[in-house]
């Protein structure tokens, strides 16, 4: 699971008012190189919740993202490459995503989050 996905996922358990962001429990992180796509980065910059991305990347052991970001930073190659790396190249391979309200853990196995709910959660 990439942090791109983490930034989109939200706990949808019945009754949860704000399931975002899911807390990350890390067992294993892997890095995989991805082609740089500036169109995608500029598009995603306006979608991502920056604080959630920065905190998630720190949890995954990458501390290079600034605490806050604004659109002017998109002019910086250095910034774009850090953004690219955090968003697309860090993978949670094993671990869990934890609902911020209920504490329910969604397992991440072989890089795949299982977000299926139990019968009593829908």
């Amino acid at each position, binding site marked *: 699971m990439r942090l791109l*996905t983490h930034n*989109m996922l939200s*706990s949808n358990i019945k009754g949860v008012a704000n399931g975002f962001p899911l807390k990350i429990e890390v067992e294993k992180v892997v890095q995989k190189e991805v082609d740089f796509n*500036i169109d*995608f980065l*500029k*598009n995603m910059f306006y979608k991502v919740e920056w604080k959630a991305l920065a905190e998630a990347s720190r949890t995954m052991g990458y501390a290079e993202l600034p605490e806050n970001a604004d659109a002017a930073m998109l002019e910086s190659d250095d910034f774009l490459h850090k953004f690219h790396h955090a968003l697309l190249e860090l993978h949670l391979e094993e671990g869990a995503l934890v609902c911020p309200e209920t504490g329910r853990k969604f397992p991440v196995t072989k890089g*795949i*989050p299982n*977000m299926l709910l139990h019968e009593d959660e829908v």
Partner: protein
Amino acid sequence: MLFGVGTASSFCFKGVYINSTIIVGNIFSRRSFSTMKEVGTHNALSLPTSEYVGEAPVLRPVSVRAKCSSNVQSTPEIEKKYVHGVYDAIAPHFSSTRFAKWPKVSAFLNSLSPGSLILDAGCGNGKYLGLNPNCFFIGCDISAALVNICADRGHEVLVADAVNLPYRTGYGDAAISIAVLHHLSTEDRRRKAVEELVRVVKKGGCILITVWAREQEDTSLVEKWTPLNQRYIAEWIGPGSPRVRNPSSPRTLVSIPEAEENGTGEQLKDLHAKSSKVKSAEVMDSTSQDKGRSLLTGSGKGYAEQQEFFVPWHLPYHRAEVSGASAVALASGLAKKDDKKGSMVYNRYYHVFSEGELERLVSGLGNAILVDRFYDKSNWCIILEKTS
């Protein structure tokens, strides 16, 4: 960005659809939807059931709505067993047959702006993930076995339910739902899945939805499906505990070569070439409902409005053995043996869509408009655009 009139109509039955941009909600005035009264416009999911007197089926409409789960997001037993269970069991073999990409889906994906985030809800073996190399794809499917196949190919995927997507609102730039809605067993669940697709894309984002059509190009396929009778609907869509039982219908499963399986254009073309009687475009061009009915029912009678089916999947013994799940599937009644074909036969549940039904399903959306619709390779297809 969207398909033009010419492109859209070229894949439609001649003369059925002539325009490509209308506002959802006005569609009922169009002539091409005159057959919609056949499926009803109220919320109850009406469908006929059959009682057999010799070879002659007697049709009687029933409503399954009252027996549906009260919670639209709770998965009915029929989907757990005859959709999720089957795909988990056949995933590697299913995936090995799923590589042909439909040109209309490819065209939609390639029409999206570079840098778009595309969400594929019900991605199966992921054959569309990554199709547009300038965009990024995130896929999900309820079948962990299929999602594993996607992940092995390097795609970004998760296990999730298309009826209840665990996504923030408006995050995607576009979404696709390819051959997914026909596996949902109630109208409320099919509508909820559409609402979810709309919810997760941004304002202005487009959504492509395709579903199997009741009006199949190759009518001989339909005769190989098993219509669900009332007992199945009562047992599986109803609240009762599931029990294992073979179909009681005299229209028992007929062996069907994998090549006849719906969804691969080249194979369908081959079939058409072999069949002298199938002239689907000409037949379906007819405005006569009687003519359409005879097409749908083939040699049988009374199946004109049948939309709930078991569609067989033949898993060759040599594939079944390696999966290790075959013995369990046999014991539980999920599969049975067809020694003549040398395969395990799994039934997959389908609700096949009638003409106009998909448009009717999305007609109540307050935040999306229908921007295109077409018939392609025995599928009804629509493109929605989120407006607010």
